[in-house]
């Protein structure tokens, strides 16, 4: 990790320091309170949800008699009990809180029950007698495409004449690849606790990335105004996108039950129910048809992306848009035709997950690149280099944004040399000659990830800063803390702005009554936006203090400096607290709101063109793997990462994002497999069957570095870059290293789908015998 040397501003030296997470000492002592740890009101009831056991069925009747008489049961909730909108879909109102009449997936909430204990509620829920008439269920995205079953209209993007480009290209390859979905597997499951307040008020503690959305959904469903609902979240035990839209479902049920019973209600999903009921990363089927020249340079490409959206729109629109935006990864695609299908399937409605469609888009193009290399018998690295964005005219994306900050080639070059890629690749080829059963593979892949919400209006943030008479500071902003270190980063910004020690700043919970209308903490934008908003708030107070000091001490503004807990005023120096006290006595307001909206971005969704992203974050990774060709078992042996964090606000936090993101991405591409049975039921709904990486899966050699002198060209907060999502996609290197390992002369481009489980790998190896699933060469 590189220590920061220079700073544009920053007067207490907090920004750029590898400070521990603000709650680290609480985490390790078990003192950090998550929603289920909060003191419970005496009247609290526990809620459980009854779910559909059919993937698609008419619900003829729900008989809850046995539920109601079960021990400890106080109340039940059905769609007819919902006074407001039976919906928690924020973008499209197509997501019922409780399915009304038609159940559309196994796990669809049908009713809820409140009881005096968690156990009583869950046991009671199982006693419902539900009569269904099964309907035809669409369980596969491709079936949905042929049936025309979509949650949103298909979208197209075009550049040049891809068909002509393909026809005229010296080489052409077409193939279908699949990448699996992924469960967020936040360690803390979904939870909300609703507490009725006087005069129709409702206080909700929710484990959510988006308190504002929970507030509005709860308000709509319960027939309230937003002003009557307060949503608070101090921290989440992980979220990864899974608590962006899904948290509203949980909160709505808790609130509706609280209204029905007049008592406080808590809904905490059991792990299995959580995995069955709530959305995940979209799995994709990707067809590509690519034309290229003898050097491996792409001349034209035709993509078909079909994603499993599940039953409703949820966030599938922007997720699939982002997949479209990232089907170039770091490469210039001169001619392109792309169609994106948002398939409606009778499975849980898929949602946000770190990367938000980006990983799937990149997966497609990287598969094409890998195939080109294997077809031309080139090192895939050479093909990647051929295709990087470069000088004009090769510097404009397929959606019209100029790539004006391109450091992908430079990062690749440095990583190639740092990781000794060329020599190791040669050594591996050699090793594979000597070893019949075990095979090694290596791959290097780049990441270029666009930062901003693609929906321009979401790129705004608010903050609230109070300074108390003793000089201590309370900080609030619209961002939520899910472990990513947002709160410490923003506190560092505020401490530096005011020139006080970070210990002077108390971080407070996200709270819709403090900062209204906040966007979700998502799209990696948390510290970019909330950092700027909080800085703005602190700067306002600082300006007032400065003006006061000028008046009071008869100095000019240039003679005032806030640093290290002191304020230098001309020749004298005053403790910050002292100045604050004097200012208060002089009736200066010591509280301010801050606001930020991301500049420069504009984007026309009807034409898919403009500048949706403020900037790009870059990185690259080399992975080396070993595969047992008898079983498909595999192991990552070494990883080298070079990642771009701009001027990092907190290198320790950013390093954590890179490492954690990479490992999570490696899980997505290897061991994490979602399976459904023929009736549409998810069969991998607990950690016993759904396997995220464990400690031993971390490569024994794991070298992670941040790019030095990587100042963001754009005016972001202290010129840092977002690090939440981009590192996840570095793990594509693992997938292509596995493909490299099992590629042989007889079959250079094995038909490997993600996740590359041992079974998927063995299938790809065995396919070598028959040539099914091979890329079809259309050479002339």
């Amino acid at each position, binding site marked *: 990790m590189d220590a920061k040397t220079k700073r544009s501003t920053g007067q207490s030296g907090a920004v750029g320091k*590898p400070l*521990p*997470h603000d*709650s*680290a*000492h609480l*985490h*390790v*002592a*078990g*003192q*950090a309170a998550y929603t*289920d*740890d909060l003191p419970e009101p005496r009247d609290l009831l526990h809620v459980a949800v009854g779910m559909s056991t059919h993937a698609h069925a008419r619900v003829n009747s729900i008989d809850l008699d046995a539920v109601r008489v079960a021990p400890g049961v106080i109340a039940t909730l059905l769609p007819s009990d919902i006074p407001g909108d039976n919906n928690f879909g924020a973008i499209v109102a197509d997501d019922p809180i409780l399915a009304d009449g038609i159940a559309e997936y196994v796990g669809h909430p049908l009713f809820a029950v409140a009881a005096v204990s968690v156990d009583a509620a869950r*046991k009671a829920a199982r006693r419902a007698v539900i009569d269904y008439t099964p309907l035809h269920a669409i369980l596969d995205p491709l079936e949905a495409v042929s049936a025309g079953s979509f949650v949103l209209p298909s979208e197209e993007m075009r550049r040049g004449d891809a068909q002509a480009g393909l026809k005229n290209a010296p080489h052409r390859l077409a193939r279908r690849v699949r990448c699996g979905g992924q469960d*967020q597997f*936040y*360690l*803390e499951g979904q939870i909300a606790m609703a507490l009725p307040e006087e005069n129709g008020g409702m206080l909700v503690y929710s484990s959510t990335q988006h308190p504002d959305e929970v507030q509005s959904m709860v308000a709509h469903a319960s027939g309230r105004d937003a002003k009557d609902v307060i949503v608070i979240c101090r921290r*989440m*035990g*992980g979220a*990864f996108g899974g608590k962006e839209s899904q948290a509203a479902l949980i909160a709505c049920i808790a609130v509706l039950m609280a209204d029905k019973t007049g008592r406080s209600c808590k809904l905490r999903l059991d*792990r299995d129910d959580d995995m069955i009921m709530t959305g995940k990363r979209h799995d994709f089927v990707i067809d590509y048809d690519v034309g290229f020249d003898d050097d491996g340079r792409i001349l034209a490409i035709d993509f078909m992306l079909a994603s499993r959206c599940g039953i409703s729109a949820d966030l599938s629109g922007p997720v699939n848009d982002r997949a479209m935006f990232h089907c170039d990864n770091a490469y210039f695609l001169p001619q392109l035709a792309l169609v994106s299908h948002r398939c409606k399937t009778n499975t849980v409605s898929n949602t946000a997950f770190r990367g938000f469609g980006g990983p799937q888009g990149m997966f497609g193009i990287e598969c094409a690149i890998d195939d080109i290399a294997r077809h031309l018998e080139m090192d895939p690295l050479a093909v990647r280099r051929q295709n990087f964005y470069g000088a004009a005219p090769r510097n404009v994306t397929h959606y019209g944004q100029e790539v004006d900050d391109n450091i992908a080639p430079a990062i690749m070059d440095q990583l190639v040399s740092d990781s000794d890629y060329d020599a190791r690749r040669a050594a591996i080829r050699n090793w594979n000659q000597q070893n019949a*059963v*075990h095979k090694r593979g290596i791959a290097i892949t780049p990441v270029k990830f666009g930062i901003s919400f693609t929906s321009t209006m979401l790129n705004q943030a608010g903050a609230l800063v109070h300074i108390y008479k003793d000089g201590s500071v309370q900080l609030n902003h619209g961002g939520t803390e899910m*472990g990513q270190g947002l709160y410490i980063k923003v506190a560092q910004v505020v401490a530096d702005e005011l020139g006080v020690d970070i210990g002077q700043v108390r971080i407070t919970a996200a709270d819709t009554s403090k900062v209204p209308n906040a966007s979700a903490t998502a799209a990696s934008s948390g510290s970019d936006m909330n950092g700027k908003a909080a800085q703005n708030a602190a700067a306002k107070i600082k300006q007032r203090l400065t003006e006061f000091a000028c008046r009071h001490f008869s100095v000019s503004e240039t003679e005032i400096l806030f640093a290290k807990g002191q304020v230098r005023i001309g020749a004298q120096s005053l403790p910050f607290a002292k100045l604050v006290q004097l200012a208060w006595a002089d009736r200066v307001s010591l509280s301010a709101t801050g606001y930020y909206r991301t500049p420069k971005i504009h984007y026309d969704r009807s034409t898919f063109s403009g500048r949706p992203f403020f900037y790009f974050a870059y990185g690259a990774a080399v992975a080396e793997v*070993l595969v*047992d060709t*008898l*079983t*498909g*078992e*595999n*192991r990552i042996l070494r990883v080298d990462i070079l990642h771009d964090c701009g001027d990092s606000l907190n290198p*320790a936090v950013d390093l*954590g994002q890179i*490492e954690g993101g*990479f*490992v999570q991405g490696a899980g997505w591409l290897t*061991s994490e*497999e979602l*399976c459904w049975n023929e009736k549409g039921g998810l*069969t991998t709904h*607990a*950690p*016993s069957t759904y*396997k*995220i*990486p*464990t*400690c*031993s*899966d*971390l490569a*024994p*050699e794991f070298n992670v570095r941040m790019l030095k002198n990587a100042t963001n060209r754009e005016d972001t907060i202290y010129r840092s870059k977002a690090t939440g999502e981009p590192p996840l996609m570095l793990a594509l290197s693992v997938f292509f290293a596995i493909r490299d390992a099992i590629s042989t002369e007889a079959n250079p481009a094995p038909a490997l789908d993600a996740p590359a489980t*041992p*079974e998927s790998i*063995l299938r790809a190896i065995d396919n070598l015998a028959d040539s099914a699933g091979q890329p079809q060469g259309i050479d002339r």
Partner: protein
Amino acid sequence: MAVNSPSVPAHPVACDTIRFVLDGEIISICNPDPTRTVLQYLRDDLRRTGTKEGCAEGDCGACTVVLLELDRTGNELRVRAINSCIQFLPTLDGKELLTVESLSSDGKRLHPVQQALVDCHGSQCGFCTPGFVMSLFALYKSEACAAGRKPGRREIDDTLAGNLCRCTGYRPIIAAAQQMSDASRTNVAEGWLAQPSCEHRSSMEKVAQLRNLRRDSGLQCAHAGRRFIAPQSIAELSAALAANPGATLLAGGTDVGLWVTKQYRELGPIIYIGAVSGLDRIVRTSTHLEIGSAATLSDAVPVIIREYPVLDELFRRFASPPIRNAATLGGNIANGSPIGDSMPALMVLGTTLLLNSSDGQREISLDDFYQDYMVNALRPGEFVESVQIPLAKPGALFGSYKVSKRFDQDISCVCAAFYLTQGGDGIATARVAFGGLSATIKRAKATEQALLGKAWNEATVAAGMVAMKRDFTPLTDMRASAAYRMRVAQNLLRRFYLETGPDARFNVYEYGRED
């Protein structure tokens, strides 16, 4: 619930009260709910919320706590991490419970393990962290780490196999594990606790306190009509079983616990075998290893591995340390899951079970024990007393392989075991058994026939692989397809051949793992 301070002489123990130590105090609970989990007790009854629930099935480690027990000599403490989410409350009787709060009550004075995690940035969302703290604390207290030795990567991986972290990617947690023993151990009394109130309780005092909790007669409590019986002798156990033929036998509870926490089953009377004296004994006779059915895997496995070193990887990959600290070999066998990991190996080694009941003892070969899916040869009132594993024979070839999606803490899609001896006329004994291919763990008779009398070479392996198709018709589920299961089963015979042949090879997982 009554709480007695240690200085006050304990009340005469009523047979319906359990007693255990928490933060130096003896806690007595009258008639605890037999299937209330330790986690529910901590979080809901004590509102001691540092310990988290991530899955309620023993798979994520968020609920990890540490138990202190007297060892068999009664003079030493055993320090073991367990999963509180599937441990039933009455099984705490006579033990000391440590939770994350025990190490630091206020988040200010931290235990070296906790401090190392802070210093290494080992927490992000922090939800998994208390569990990691407790698993690492057990490692810190282990012999392997005594005297400030730095644990190696493999040791850390193995220790943390049952703790999932979704945020960090583990690198900083591994760093913390290596750093924790750097801290001076002397300033925190024996490294037990950082809490001032507990600092001065030495191991000796802890031993004395636990000795005081020993009971004269078996625990028998009832809660809302549901009973928990913990006999203290084998005779009492068979009598209790005879009197309650429908009772659920409870050993480590790592299968039974999930019936309650995941299937929401109401269990009838529970007979707990963990307090039966002598049932946990492990002896090496002149012909056998005798593993008492109440011996935990953590105790039994080292003995088995000393006899059969090739089983090291299989047992390292069997669940996780907190599970193995509770689970028994007897429970694995008696539960009889078709994907149980110990049975293929035990079967090909010629293991027999000693069964017992009020009608007396009998022996049965493991080969004959399984009758159908989750149906075994135990008669009503009968229990497994011990598992008898023949000692290793020189010259025999033996191997057992587990294949799963993930290296650690995963359930096998296929588990294979091979045992061969060779005579002048080729293969003289061939025993092959598989889990994951049929409704029970089963010998592969056709495969064995194909090998018998042949030379141990490629051609024989190929014949064995073909014959295997006659032995099994596997099923497809979320762990693997039928085709993959069969293919892998066949290939494992080849792997066995390669490993016993002249150019022996490491398992894929060995690469890069050397410490």
